[in-house]
């Protein structure tokens, strides 16, 4: 009986292929859209619960003075404190290819050492200290004022090389900014974007703020992560009546803030996903129905030969399931392998991730589509009376 199903699949190979292909395409799209939602979810996880981010209470765009640093460091439970400042320059050679840049200071790489590793670096020209906890391969970077560290994916995308000097055009901080690439990092955690550039905050404050030291955010490493909420409250209450006041959040909450900025876009994507599934269901069901109707006479013969109603029913459902499941598998897995890991959102979001969960949901949907589209024709076929089937002339 299984053989019969296979033979039937190849009865009209073009039709089988077309149906399979449309299911495939739909599932690819469904999983890709699901992937965008997954990526948003993933970006919340970028932040660890054990790191804190301090920003201006008004909004991220406002600055806080560098002088706050000492007072923050003095709060019990704060192990390290680093500056992280959005730079927002554009690359004149590739104006549309936006990427994120941050001015950071020395402890930054020590704080993030669990997340990134340095894969390429220039040799140090002089003996120089690397701050405690940072990768010794960064020695050349720490010695040079205009040095920068870039992500491996960014390096490849832009075709840059280690040691190359690039010039960016400032938007918030006007002027031309030369940088020399002294190290390349790779993310150890997938959620940490690999298309980001880091450089010395000092360079930024000296050249861009005429020595005035304004800071976008401070990133804090805690000596005891379980104390996060205590430390967080201690910092904010310290600056409660200062101008400006601060807002301290765990890194995770900070990232979640970005996700909530997307507003109802995730909802729109969900609706589109459902519409796609529904339209494909229609196509698959339509095909199965035509294909079964054509074979009415054949079912009569099968039943005459002694096939039971149940067997005929099973055969038709199985045929539909094979078609949709085949297409679904290729589409869903295709999305997983083609889309996963691509950074299509530039610097704002971590690389695309498509969770296995989404892939399995997709495959399950394919199965359901198969069952539903096969159900009606299968019922018709199984209920068919032999006399009617054989009498019918098209």
């Amino acid at each position, binding site marked *: 009986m299984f053989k019969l199903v296979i033979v039937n699949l190849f009865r009209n190979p073009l039709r089988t292929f077309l149906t399979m292909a449309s299911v495939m395409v739909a599932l690819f799209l469904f999983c890709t859209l699901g992937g965008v939602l997954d990526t948003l979810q993933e970006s919340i996880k970028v932040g660890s619960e054990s790191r804190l981010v301090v920003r201006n209470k008004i909004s991220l765009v406002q600055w806080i003075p560098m002088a706050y640093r000492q007072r923050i460091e003095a709060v019990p439970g704060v192990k390290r404190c680093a500056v992280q400042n959005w730079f927002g320059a554009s690359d004149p050679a590739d104006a549309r290819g936006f990427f994120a840049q941050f001015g950071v200071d020395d402890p930054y790489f020590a704080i993030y050492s669990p997340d990134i590793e340095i894969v390429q670096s220039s040799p140090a020209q002089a003996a120089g200290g690397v701050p405690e906890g940072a990768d010794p391969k960064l020695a050349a970077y720490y010695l040079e004022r205009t040095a920068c560290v870039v992500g491996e994916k960014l390096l490849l995308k832009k075709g840059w090389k280690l040691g190359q000097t690039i010039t960016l055009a400032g938007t918030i901080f006007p002027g031309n900014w030369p940088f020399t690439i002294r190290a390349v990092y790779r993310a150890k955690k997938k959620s940490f974007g690999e298309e980001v550039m880091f450089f010395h905050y000092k360079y930024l404050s000296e050249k861009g703020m005429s020595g005035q030291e304004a800071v976008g955010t401070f990133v804090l490493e805690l000596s005891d992560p379980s104390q996060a909420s205590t430390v967080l409250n201690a910092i904010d209450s310290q600056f409660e009546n200062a101008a400006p006041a601060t807002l301290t959040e765990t890194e995770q909450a900070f990232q979640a803030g970005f996700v909530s900025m997307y*507003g109802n876009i995730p909802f729109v994507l969900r609706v589109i996903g459902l519409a796609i599934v529904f*339209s494909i269901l229609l196509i698959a069901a339509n095909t199965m129905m035509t294909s079964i109707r054509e074979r009415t006479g054949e079912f009569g013969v099968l039943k005459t030969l002694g096939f039971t109603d149940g067997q005929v029913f099973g055969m038709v459902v199985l045929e539909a399931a094979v078609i949709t499941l085949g297409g679904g598998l290729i589409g869903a897995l295709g999305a997983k392998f083609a889309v996963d890991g691509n950074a299509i959102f530039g610097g704002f979001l971590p690389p695309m991730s498509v969770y296995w969960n989404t892939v399995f949901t997709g495959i399950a949907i394919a199965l359901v589509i198969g069952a539903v589209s096969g159900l009606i024709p299968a019922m018709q076929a199984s209920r068919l009376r032999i006399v009617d089937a054989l009498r019918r002339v098209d």
Partner: protein
Amino acid sequence: MAIPFAYNLRSVTHRPVSTATTALGIGLTVAIYIGALALAAGFKASLVTTGSPDNAIVLRKGADSEISSGVSLDQSNILKADPAVAVGPDGRPRASAEMVIVVNKPRLGQKGSSNIMLRGVDPAAADLRGGVTMVAGRMFTPGTDEVIVAKRIAGRFANCNVGDKLRFEQRDFTVVGQFTAGGSAFESEIWGDAAVLMPALHREGYFQTFVFRMKNPEQFAAIKKRIEADPRLSLEVKKERDFYAAQSELFSTLITAIGTFITIIMAIGAVFGAANTMYASIGARTREIATLLVLGFGPGAVLVSFVVESVIIAVIGGLVGCVLSLPMNGITSSTTNFQSFSEMAFQFRITPAIMLQALVFSALLGLVGGFFPALKASRQSLSSSLRG
């Protein structure tokens, strides 16, 4: 000789279920296509209609958005005295030096918070911009702790009703009115008096932008050249309209790209569906087609006829799609415009042009999907078909 059109029409109605499912499949694709276009159009519209063609905006050189710009008090005073600035009936320059700042506020009815643009304006701003209408409450009184909130975002953030208090830094501001601004980007903002907001937000001494009504808008190029060459200023002059239109570019490009990607993939699926239906329908009509050929209709006529049939089904689908997408028109949605780093509320906007585009698109789907089945029909051998 061409096969009569009525033949195709009857064929389509002869198989109502399969026609309907195919058309609905195409319809959904078209609806999504319209949705993507409407989203981009709505977003663009709110930024493109922002500002008046007679206004010029002055920003710091190199700044690509209002928040990254800066105009000092001295610079704004120099600009105010510039001969290119129109003078109002009260003898004051029709200009507004503005503080633009992004404030983070909790969302209403949704988790999390988002950024809103807070604009400290000159009392002349409402008149300068035109189209600012109070729909509830009243305009803020200059010199007081009063602000007005755009109607479109009032429902999306907490404490935005008339009489509510909004806190910025250490000071409470009272919401005294809600306004609309002809669908422009200002409808995603909070406005107050710059002279009060600036000290409250520790922004004394410098504004973000300087907007003025030009005495002679035709002389924009000359005005631009003169101001930009002024060594005291180091500023850039743009037409207000052009500036805001450019602000939408990043996002509408992104939406259009995503929409196109989704549509192309769905279109492939829909073409497969249409092809499938046509193959089935032609397969069932082998004898009929052979009869047509025997009657003397050429293979070319058969080809055209079946492509036409497929296009009919697809266009029905396109119409269904248009109808399905209509409820989307006017829905207000919002997202962050990363160019300005603040929330932008906008409406889905389905224009006749978009609908037309969608219908053409659906016809195209039918054309592509129907071509190969039609080719097969026109090429079938007479003897075997008639025997079959």
